[in-house]
C-alpha cells in the first residue's frame, strides 16, 4: 500500500479520542478512497463478512419466527433436504440432467459462434451480410420460440438444448464479433509487413489476438445459458433442477425450491471459476 498524502501521525502522548479519530481517518484513507487498491486479505474478509451477514439475517428471520416456515425455510431445512435428496439419488440425477443440457447447448453454440463471430468482426463483408439478420433474431425473447420448438422437436432434451442454443448463440456471435473488431489494426498491418499473407494473418494473428476476449465472452454467456436452462425446464421436463423446483412448488416444499436455487448458484459460480482459471493458466500472456 502506498500512502501518498497521508497525514502525519500525532504524538503518542495525545488523548485516546484523538488516536481514535486518527485510526478512523487512516481507515477512511486506505479503504474509502475511490478506486484505491486494498489488500487481498481485506478483500476476502469483506466478501465473507457480507455473506455471513446475509446468512445471519436469514437465520434471524427464520429461527426468530418472523416468517412462517412454508414461506421461507430455515437454513438447516435446506441442508437436510439436500442430504435427503442426495441419499435418494435424486439430486445427483437432476444436477446431471441439467448440466448435460447446459453443456451440450453451450458447446454446440460456442463451436459455431466463436469462428462465426471472429469472421464477422474480422471481415466487413461477413458483418454486412449477417448483422441485420442476427440483430433481428437477437432481440426475440427465447421464450417466444418455445411453443415453436415444442412443435418442432418435442419436449425431450432436444427442446431444452435448442432453447439454450438459441438463447446463447446470437449473443455470443455479437460479443465475439466485437472482440475481433477491437483487435488493433496495426497488429494486422505489422503482420503483413513481416511477410504474412491473408490466410496466415487470420490464423496466426487475428485468432490468437481474440482468445482472451473470447474466453471472457464465453464466461458471461455461460451464465445466460443457465438462466435459459431453468426457463426450458419449467416449461416441459421430467428431470433437472428446474423440474425439481417446479415439483417442490406443487408439494409446498420451499426448502427444496431453495435447495435447487442454491445448487444452480453454486454450479454457476464453479463455471465462472473454471473460466477464470482457463484465462489465468491457459493465457498467461493476456493482460
Amino acid at each position, binding site marked *: 500500500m502506498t500512502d501518498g498524502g497521508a497525514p502525519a501521525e500525532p504524538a503518542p502522548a495525545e488523548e485516546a479520542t484523538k488516536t481514535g479519530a486518527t485510526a478512523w481517518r487512516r481507515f477512511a484513507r486506505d479503504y474509502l478512497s475511490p478506486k484505491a487498491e486494498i489488500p487481498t486479505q481485506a478483500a476476502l474478509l469483506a466478501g465473507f463478512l457480507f455473506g455471513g451477514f446475509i446468512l445471519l439475517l436469514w437465520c434471524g428471520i427464520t429461527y426468530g419466527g418472523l416468517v412462517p416456515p412454508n414461506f421461507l425455510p430455515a437454513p438447516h431445512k435446506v441442508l437436510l433436504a439436500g442430504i435427503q435428496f442426495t441419499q435418494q439419488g435424486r439430486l445427483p440425477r437432476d444436477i446431471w440432467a441439467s448440466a448435460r443440457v447446459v453443456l451440450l447447448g453451450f458447446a454446440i453454440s460456442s463451436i459455431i459462434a466463436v469462428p462465426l463471430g471472429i469472421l464477422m468482426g474480422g471481415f466487413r463483408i461477413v458483418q454486412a451480410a449477417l448483422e441485420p439478420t442476427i440483430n433481428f433474431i437477437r432481440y426475440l425473447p427465447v421464450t417466444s420460440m418455445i411453443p415453436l420448438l415444442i412443435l418442432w422437436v418435442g419436449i425431450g432434451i432436444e427442446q431444452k438444448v435448442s432453447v439454450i442454443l438459441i438463447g446463447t448463440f446470437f449473443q455470443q456471435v455479437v460479443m465475439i464479433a466485437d472482440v475481433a473488431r477491437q483487435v*488493433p489494426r*496495426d497488429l494486422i498491418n*505489422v503482420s*503483413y*509487413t*513481416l511477410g504474412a499473407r491473408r490466410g*496466415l494473418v487470420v490464423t496466426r494473428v487475428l485468432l490468437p*489476438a481474440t482468445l482472451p476476449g473470447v474466453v471472457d465472452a464465453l464466461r458471461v454467456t455461460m451464465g445466460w445459458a443457465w438462466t435459459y436452462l431453468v426457463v426450458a425446464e419449467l416449461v416441459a421436463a421430467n428431470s433437472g433442477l428446474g423440474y425439481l423446483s417446479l415439483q417442490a412448488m406443487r408439494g409446498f416444499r420451499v426448502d427444496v425450491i431453495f435447495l435447487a436455487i442454491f445448487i444452480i448458484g453454486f454450479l454457476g459460480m464453479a463455471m465462472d471459476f473454471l473460466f477464470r482459471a482457463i484465462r489465468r493458466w491457459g493465457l498467461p*500472456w493476456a*493482460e
Partner: protein
Amino acid sequence: MSKLSIRDVELRFERRGRPPLLALDRISLDVADKEFAVIVGPSGCGKSSLLYLVAGLNRPSGGIMLLDGKPIDEPDRDRGMVFQSYTLFPWLTVRDNIAFGLKIQGKGAADQQAIVDRYLAEVGLESFADAYPKQLSGGMMQRVALARAMANDPQILLMDEPFGALDSQTRVMMQQLLLHVWEHEHKTVLFVTHDIDEALLLGDRLYVMTARPGRIKERLHVTLPRPRPVEMTMSPEFLALKQRVLGLLQEEVTKSIGLGRAEAG
C-alpha cells in the same frame, strides 16, 4: 540507382457530398541504398500516410513507387515497418515475436535461433528473451519491434514515429540505440517524425513537408559527421541546421492550426 523512388504520388480521400480531400500532393523523393532518410512535418501533414503507402498498406490515388526498380503493390517483407503504436504479438514471447517473420519464411530452427540471438543482442534484450510483451516497458517493446523488423532482413526499414509514445529520456536512449544498430547493419531507412532534433540526429537526408495537403517543401542534406552522440544536438552546426528547419516548419504549423485556412478541407 536509388533504392526507393517515389514519383508524383498523390493520396485523395473521397468524401460524400464534398470535394475529395487531398492528403498528399505530388510527392517525389528518392532514398539511396543504405541511406537514412527522414521525413519531418507538422502533425496531420500526411507523412505517416506516405509511409503506409510505401509499406503497401494503403494504395495511392496516383503516382509511381518503385523499390529496387519494381513497382510497389502489396505489403511484403522487403519493406519492414516499426509503428508508433505497440504492435508486439502479446501471445508470443520476445524470442517468438522476433522469429515471427523467419517462421513464415520457413527458415530452419537453427537459423532462426542464430538470427534471433543476434538481434536480441543488438537491442540489448538477451535477458528478456522469454518474457511476454506485457512484462516489458514501452521502450523495450519498441526495441523488440525494431529487432523483429530487422531480423526479417528487409530491403528498407520504414519507421513511423517509433519513439513518439516514449518519455524524453527513453526517446534519447532509443535514438542512440537505433544509430548504433544502423551503423552495424547499414539498412536503408525511411523514418517519419515531427521532432526536429530526432530528424537531424538520425538522418542523412531530410525532407520537410508542408501542412495538408502534404508536399515536399524542402530537401536538406544533413552533413553532420557520424557517429552522432546526444551532445551533438548542442553543437553550432546542429543548431544552425535546427534553426533553418524550425523556420520552415513554423510557417506550416501556423497554417495547420488554422491561421491559414485557404486550402484546408
